[in-house]
């Protein structure tokens, strides 16, 4: 189960981009707490504190207790808007939680026993289709991560949601289909071993040859010799 994180906040008096930008200049991030059939509460939090929580890697699937004056509000982070270039947080959304509430959260997936998979041992690549699983669970019992065992997986095998035993009290939010979480795919070297020699020739031809390599098809047909 995820740890409970804490964050101190202050009430935000003014809304809008001018006030929000002024806050950001002072190292504060505008945020909002909503839900539980109450009015939305605009707040602002310390940027450094929020960044620290973000970099724990499990903030989005942990309960965050927000200290607002004398009140302590139990929330679940729903969204953190990041700047597209600098990746600094711009705004955060927190969902106020009632007692016994069920929530939908994205829980990260961790793949264990990769050494025990014959497919991966032979050079196969674990192609992760979903890095996170959308689960519906009790707010007090959100799993930290979902461990998936890849023991015995061969090249071409895949793990579907139906094969995963979820922790007690959790169920998948997507129920209409048996979606794929990860597959073990053949490495590019095995797939394209025939064309390997052609590629080596191409590279020695220089620029003219490189133009002819239009059919190289992505990353698959790379020769082993290194120019570096």
């Amino acid at each position, binding site marked *: 189960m995820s740890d409970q994180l804490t964050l101190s906040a202050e009430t935000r008096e003014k809304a809008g981009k001018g006030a929000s930008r002024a806050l950001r200049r002072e190292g504060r991030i505008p945020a909002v707490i909503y839900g539980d059939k109450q009015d939305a509460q605009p707040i602002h939090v310390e940027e450094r504190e929020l960044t620290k929580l973000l970099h724990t890697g499990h903030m989005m699937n942990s309960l965050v207790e927000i200290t607002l004056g004398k009140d302590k509000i139990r929330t679940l982070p729903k969204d953190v808007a990041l700047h597209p270039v600098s990746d600094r947080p711009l705004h955060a959304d927190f969902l106020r939680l009632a007692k016994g509430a069920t929530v939908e959260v994205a829980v990260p997936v961790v793949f264990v026993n990769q050494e025990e998979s014959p497919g991966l041992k032979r050079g196969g690549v674990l192609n992760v289709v979903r890095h996170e699983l959308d689960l519906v669970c009790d707010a007090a019992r959100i799993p930290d991560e979902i461990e998936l065992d890849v023991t015995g997986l061969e090249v071409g095998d895949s793990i579907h949601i139906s094969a995963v035993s979820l922790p007690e009290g959790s169920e998948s939010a997507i129920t209409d289909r048996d979606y794929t979480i990860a597959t073990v795919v053949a490495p590019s070297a095995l797939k394209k071993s025939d064309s390997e020699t052609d590629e080596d020739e191409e590279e020695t031809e220089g620029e003219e040859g490189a133009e002819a390599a239009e059919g190289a098809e992505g990353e698959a047909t790379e020769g082993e010799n290194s120019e*570096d």
Partner: protein
Amino acid sequence: MLQPKKMKYRKAFKGKIKGNAPGGTTLNFGSYGLKAMEPERITARQIEAARRAITRHIRRQGRLWIRVFPDVPVSKKPAEVRQGKGKGSVEYWAARVKPGRILFELDGVPGPIAAVAFERAAMKLPIKTKVVARLGDTSHLGA
């Protein structure tokens, strides 16, 4: 090299690259990515050179995604030709890249290897870039 299979118009205006990337700024496929920090037209040749630099370094492990596509035809007049007489012929293809755009993504390789692979790819590109990872993953730092 990457280029469109068919096109609606043979030649395009030069255009300007303004503002930050409206989308494609977060990791969608892999665990590590190379993010553009400056606006620039990146040619198909540069994308291919960067791709080769990455695949050489990761040595057939892992999986690579290219998140930009050169869909802008860039024309050029031949040497020693007087001005006028219409626009030159298409010389190469380029992708218009805005700051914040993820150019490449990698998965299935350790963080330090991904970081070095991207560093080598960045040398082939005409812009400043940075290596990004999923939140909470710091294994690529200090590689």
